[in-house]
């Protein structure tokens, strides 16, 4: 909810201000507190959803201004939206956060020590596949040449905390693969036309996930269309409050998917942002687009897939933007349970953020690290050999922390398991 342009709201100016109704919906009951990862770690009111809403409301009521300290507490917020799931009053926390971040960003209010340059760098690289591809080529060399082994082995990056955190997250960068065909025919009777969103991190770090997604959709009877010229969906920009940049990217993306029945995302963060295009671009094209967006698990859950047995003990981690952002929890589990021979064990606190939260783990390594450690402890307790999660960020974060904690589990996207089990005739 935003008031696009109108009267200023206390310390907020009139452009994309957070909604006063949204702020007032909070009754201060605190039910969100135990669900908030940063509150669980810090136990402080101002790093809880209730406290953050209170600060935003205080700013809207002119009790305080938008300050660097407030920015700090908002920076620490993962944007996981577990609070929205818990909130009985329907406070639209995610949108309030994004609106407030947007205002602060635009007016240059930042927490002292905030790493704006890293964020800016990431936001500038991701929307441009060419730039991202080039950077990754360099990183691939770094890995293949043995430099990474040297750097990691001798802890050469230790004095550069941020850089070290980024480096640690780096999964093996795959060799460039041939791009997916623009159109893939369905197998069997045609169910419809699905447009596949390639994503940024996904297409470069986990191209196999995209390939598997396409295979599964095709097996389910969809004609799979992969628009070549698609770029970034703008999720990272939105979550950082760069609303105008989001709008620009959305306007470039929407027309590419004009002729499909369903727009399929396999990265939770992307899917969530796409479903919210209608909120930030109040026009029909955006609305019609958002209405057609589905996560791959939602699409496949409604289809019959021929599956061979796959004997594995798997536990499922809920990516925040899938569980809380899109309220998709049952479908991925249901799909995994369909695989014969697969044992799905419950992961306690499965909905608690792993610490990835987009690029949060690059900007707030300490908090992200603590959450990563806690997630691995929960995974270890299940005794599972495989962890499945529907978001590339989660995969990177969980993989990195498993390695750090010496836990040998395979970390994969659910579609990878489904594709493995897929019976191909």
């Amino acid at each position, binding site marked *: 909810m935003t008031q696009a342009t109108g009267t200023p709201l206390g310390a907020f100016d009139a452009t994309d201000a957070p909604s006063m109704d949204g702020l007032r919906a909070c009754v201060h*009951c605190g039910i969100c507190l*135990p669900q908030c990862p940063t509150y669980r770690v810090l*136990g402080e*009111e*101002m790093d809880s959803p209730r*406290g953050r809403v*209170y*600060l935003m409301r205080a700013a809207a009521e002119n009790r*305080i201004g938008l300050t660097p300290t407030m920015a700090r507490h908002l920076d620490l917020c993962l944007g996981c939206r577990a609070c929205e799931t818990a909130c*009985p009053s329907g406070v639209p926390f995610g949108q309030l956060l994004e609106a407030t971040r947007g205002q602060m960003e635009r007016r240059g209010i930042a927490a002292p020590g905030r790493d704006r340059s890293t964020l800016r760098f990431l936001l500038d690289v991701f929307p441009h596949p060419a730039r991202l591809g080039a950077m990754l080529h360099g990183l691939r060399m770094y890995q293949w040449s043995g430099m990474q082994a040297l750097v990691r082995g001798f802890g050469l990056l230790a004095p550069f905390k941020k850089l070290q955190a980024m480096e640690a997250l780096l999964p093996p960068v795959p060799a460039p693969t041939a791009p997916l065909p623009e159109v893939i025919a369905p197998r069997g009777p045609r169910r419809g036309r699905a447009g596949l969103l390639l994503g940024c991190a996904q297409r470069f770090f986990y191209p196999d996930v995209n390939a598997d997604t396409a295979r599964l959709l095709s097996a389910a009877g969809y004609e799979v269309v992969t628009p070549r010229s698609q770029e970034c969906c703008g999720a990272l920009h939105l979550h950082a409050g760069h609303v105008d940049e989001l709008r620009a990217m959305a306007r470039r993306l929407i027309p590419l998917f004009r002729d499909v029945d369903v727009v399929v995302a396999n990265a939770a963060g992307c899917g969530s942002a796409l479903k919210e295009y209608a909120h930030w671009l109040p026009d029909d094209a955006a609305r019609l687009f958002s209405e057609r967006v589905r996560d791959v698990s939602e699409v496949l859950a409604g289809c019959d897939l021929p599956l061979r047995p796959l004997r594995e003990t798997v536990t499922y981690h809920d990516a925040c933007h899938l569980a809380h952002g899109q309220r998709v929890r049952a479908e991925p589990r249901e799909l995994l349970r369909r695989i014969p021979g697969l044992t799905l064990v419950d992961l306690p606190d499965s909905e608690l953020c792993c610490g990835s939260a987009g690029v949060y783990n690059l900007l707030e390594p300490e908090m992200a690290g603590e959450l990563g450690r806690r997630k691995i402890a929960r995974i270890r307790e299940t005794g599972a050999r495989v962890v499945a999660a529907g978001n590339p960020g989660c995969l990177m974060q969980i993989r990195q922390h498993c390695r750090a904690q010496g836990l040998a589990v395979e970390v994969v996207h659910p579609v990878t398991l489904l594709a493995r089990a897929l019976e191909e005739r």
Partner: protein
Amino acid sequence: MALPSHILRALEGIVGPGGLVVSPEGLLTYECDMHTFYKGAPDAVTLPQSAGQVAEIVRLCRHEHVPIVPRGSGTGLIGGAMAPVGGVMVSMTRMNRILELDWENRCATVEPGLINLWLSQATRERGYFFAPDPSSQMVSSIGGNASTNAGGPHCLKYGITVNHVLGLEVVTGAGELVRLGGKTHERPGYDLTGVMVGAEGTLGLVTSVTVRLTHVPEGVKTILASFSTIEDASETVSAIIRAGIIPAALEMLDEVVIRAIEEGIGAGYPKGAGAVLLIELDGPVAEIEAQSGPIEAICREHLALEIRVAKSEAERALLWKGRKEAAGVFGRLTPNWLLQDAVVPRSKLPAIMRELQDIGARHRVVIANVFHAGDGNLHPLICYDDRVPGELERAKQANDDLLHACLRLGGSVTGEHGVGLDKSQSLPLQFAPADLNFMARLRRVFDPDSIMNPGKLLPSHPACGEGFRPAARPLPAGTWI
């Protein structure tokens, strides 16, 4: 009013820089609990991690004549966890571990910041749970529950928090770190544990709690009975108690609340009913089977429109989620509210509900009801909008009338929420000067320098003497409602 730097330095020395909040933004978030009507920011917030640190904080504050305000999860409804005259807030949220689960003695020792529900979650597998179940249990802390002697829907059968507390470790207002009670159920001497429970942080800060664990019942049956009027539902409640049946829980919700719950949570309550009763029986299967027939018959005798029995644990859980999260959906009903917690004798329930409707009509305010009908513990939610001139005044009038009506019927000011700031001025309606004076002197025994949670629980009243005013800081005029 900022604290002098030497005190801040000393506090930082005790809890470390990471355990001290002094920024204006941070302090602002601690200025109220769930009852946002009462706001008062502390001058500093400390987040200790051990009883030793708590004791040092209290001793420092006593020495410096600085008031102390304890805080758990900040979900209270009485303006308890806020600092009307500033001072040091002590937040127990980082002391949230289960210290010991003693299966042989069937008790648990926990830190005060532990969330109530988390204890039951940790013990359920072994067939035990922590019985006091306030509606806030998914977020309220056990220390907070002990400090307010919290109730909840199932206290009808199982009793309130004090009936389940075996011992407390506390730091008194005099700075003494003492262990009251313990695992043994019998102890010579005065029942200091019993007095400390429900003392709302005015006698001491709780640093650990030893509680009884209760065996999970063999069976449970949850019945939802809907009625066209509150009258019919109230008569049903009286009749059930009269028949000598004590359910495990007996809750009433009216149509205003049902609408909000269904909108916000979608828990399966029947929209269009004037009132519903959520009745739960638990215990040996043979017993609940034999009791549910008579209960259903009583409901039918009192014109129940529909009687539904939850068919699965999931359905039951959803019905309770609707009930327990009702506080959260208040936001959908009304921008602002006043909430009462008065109790009437059970036999007077139909009468008070009639009176309540009259009061609402008389003052032109909507009064929503979701409460523990089985104990006569009302929770009338008086709705108003602070942006509309005159509504707050009418709401306050209705609040007053209602309280007086409850007391006239032989009831009590507060059943389970506690007194805090919200109800302290109402105590003289229930207690004579000699009674108030006794309580004030009791307080001074534990808090000789009057630093513990000033302004709470006891009223500004001559009978309470100078005792409860903090030594060096006079109360600002007009603070009280």
